[in-house]
């Protein structure tokens, strides 16, 4: 509503909220890594020509036998773990963000339709949502992936199939509220068509709660994608995400070669932790009920 005042008010509260600041710092660090990281490491871990099998399973640099070229050690194919984590984070973050965006667009559209028009459109969309919610999202994603096969595009479809529901429900709820408001009635008296009323009046006023949902969902999607890849039904081996990196290291974890799994795992943890810290802060700030 009071965009300008709210913006400064949020900034004001952000400065006094330690977990919000930490979350932002962690996420900025991740962003930096994803954006600039590849140019900082010497090796492209997926260019087979750059790999040296003689360098396989080197420990991190601070352990005995470590090689300063490979700060966090190497894996079984002589791949630099740091470089792999950087490239993997890129893929994980890309999947998390694009799947969230896709779910948000599709879910918001369906939620607007359901909330604004009601009737059978509403009944249809919401019953599908209910059915979808009665299965664990991991199970649905797993099922779809085993049907489609691996691939980033297929992961996006699966995650979107799982993720749209929460937007549709949130948006439908807010839309039902907004539809009753006098400014929507005023728009009707002004002669606006339904599409224009939805686009110009309702959509901007139901967006705020979505920011919170979307923030948290990026974290959830990164985790689901990691799980799928860990189970071998996620990304293809040529484009390993963090989950696949963990799986690759997992096979040799009990031989004492822990670094190949641990560092991608820590990376996922840091990213999701940062997202959740920021998400909690946004939830407190943007939830009108807590005000």
């Amino acid at each position, binding site marked *: *509503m009071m965009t300008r005042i709210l913006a400064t008010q949020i900034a004001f509260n952000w400065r006094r909220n330690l977990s919000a600041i930490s979350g932002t710092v962690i996420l900025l660090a991740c962003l930096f890594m994803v954006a600039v990281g590849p140019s900082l490491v010497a090796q492209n871990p997926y260019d087979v020509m750059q790999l040296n099998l003689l360098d396989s399973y080197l420990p991190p640099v601070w352990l005995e036998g470590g090689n300063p070229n490979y700060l966090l050690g190497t894996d079984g194919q002589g791949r630099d773990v740091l470089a792999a984590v950087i490239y993997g984070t890129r893929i994980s973050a890309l999947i998390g963000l694009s799947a969230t965006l896709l779910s948000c667009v599709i879910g918001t559209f369906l939620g607007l339709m359901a909330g604004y028009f009601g009737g059978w459109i509403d009944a249809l969309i919401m019953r599908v949502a209910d059915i979808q919610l009665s299965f664990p999202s991991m199970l649905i994603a797993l099922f779809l992936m085993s049907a489609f096969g691996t691939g980033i595009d297929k992961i996006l479809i699966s995650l979107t199939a799982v993720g749209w529901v929460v937007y549709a429900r949130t948006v439908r709820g807010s839309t039902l509220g907004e539809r009753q408001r006098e400014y929507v*009635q005023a728009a009707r008296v*002004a002669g606006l068509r339904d599409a224009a009323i939805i686009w110009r009046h309702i959509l901007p006023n139901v967006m705020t709660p979505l920011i919170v949902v979307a923030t948290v969902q990026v974290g959830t999607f990164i985790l689901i994608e990691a799980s799928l890849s860990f189970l071998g039904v996620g990304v293809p081996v040529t484009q390993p995400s963090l989950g696949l990196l963990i799986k690759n290291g997992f096979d040799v974890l009990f031989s004492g070669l822990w670094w190949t799994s641990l560092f991608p795992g820590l990376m996922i943890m840091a990213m999701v932790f940062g997202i959740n810290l920021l998400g909690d802060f946004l939830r407190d700030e943007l939830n009108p009920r807590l005000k």
Partner: protein
Amino acid sequence: MTAMLEVQDLRQEFRLNPGLLDRISMKGGRLHLQDRIVSAVSGVSFSIAKREVLALVGESGCGKSTVAKAIARIYRPTAGNIRLDGQDIASLSQAELLPYRSKMQMIFQDPFASLDPRQKVRDIVAEPLRAQSGLASGEVAERVAALLAKVGLNTEHAGRYPHQFSGGQRQRIGIARALSVNPGLIIADEPVSALDVSVQAQILNLMMDLRDEFGLAYLFISHDLSVVHHIADRIGVMYLGFLVETAPRDRLFAMPRHPYTRALLSAAPSINPTRSRPEIELQGEVPSALALPSGCCFRTRCPYAWDRCAQERPALRDMGDGQSVACHLTDEPQRDMP
């Protein structure tokens, strides 16, 4: 001369809990589909001449706002005719309505809810213009500036958001929006009831000035009798979805005929100390619109009610001098004893 607005036997029903699952119930061992229907407006007729101000008064739940929103075609009326400048618009679709929208605009009750918080004032005021006319954007901007000046705001206000204004100023923005397409009729749904008294007077004066300048007709919805007395030429009193009495302003205040009108007039507090004891003190409260009483809608609270009132619904009857009343007392005036 044709009337600006002519409403005939307008009915507006709302179905509660419209979901299929909510409507299924068990009755006598069988599944039963039931509708809970609220009759918000049960057959209301009136007309408004050009440049005339008709006020509908009544208490909450009497259907006065529903009448306004049905005429503005925010709702689709269940039955009845709404002739706007001769053309019946009661059953037109939203698309078919578009050409008639410019003859009728609306001012809303809540100055905080009736303006989209995310739009700038210039876009709010221009919305009906953009939807209904093919004006170029330069002409629109010019017109918006002129409208803002007309309602006592200035051009620099155009770039601001609604939250930067007080309640009275927001209501001015709403009025400018309604005026933008040069309507002949403005439906004003409790336009001053959310405002402080000093601001209320400003808005009422503005509305009267605009009527004189543009020759507007108003359908003015209000619960406040003193406001209605100030602005209306003619007054209709509503109770539980029915019009129980209509009369020219002075006639209604001097000689109210329906017991409800009399009760309403005597219940209104006044700052004028020299006032006689209330003529009729009402007991009890308004019955639910889900289950209207049989016969006369007012009989459950009427001190005069007798058996005929439960059996027969009184129709609105012309009593002369522009006054119409729906009450059996007009047949049997001997019962009208205090």
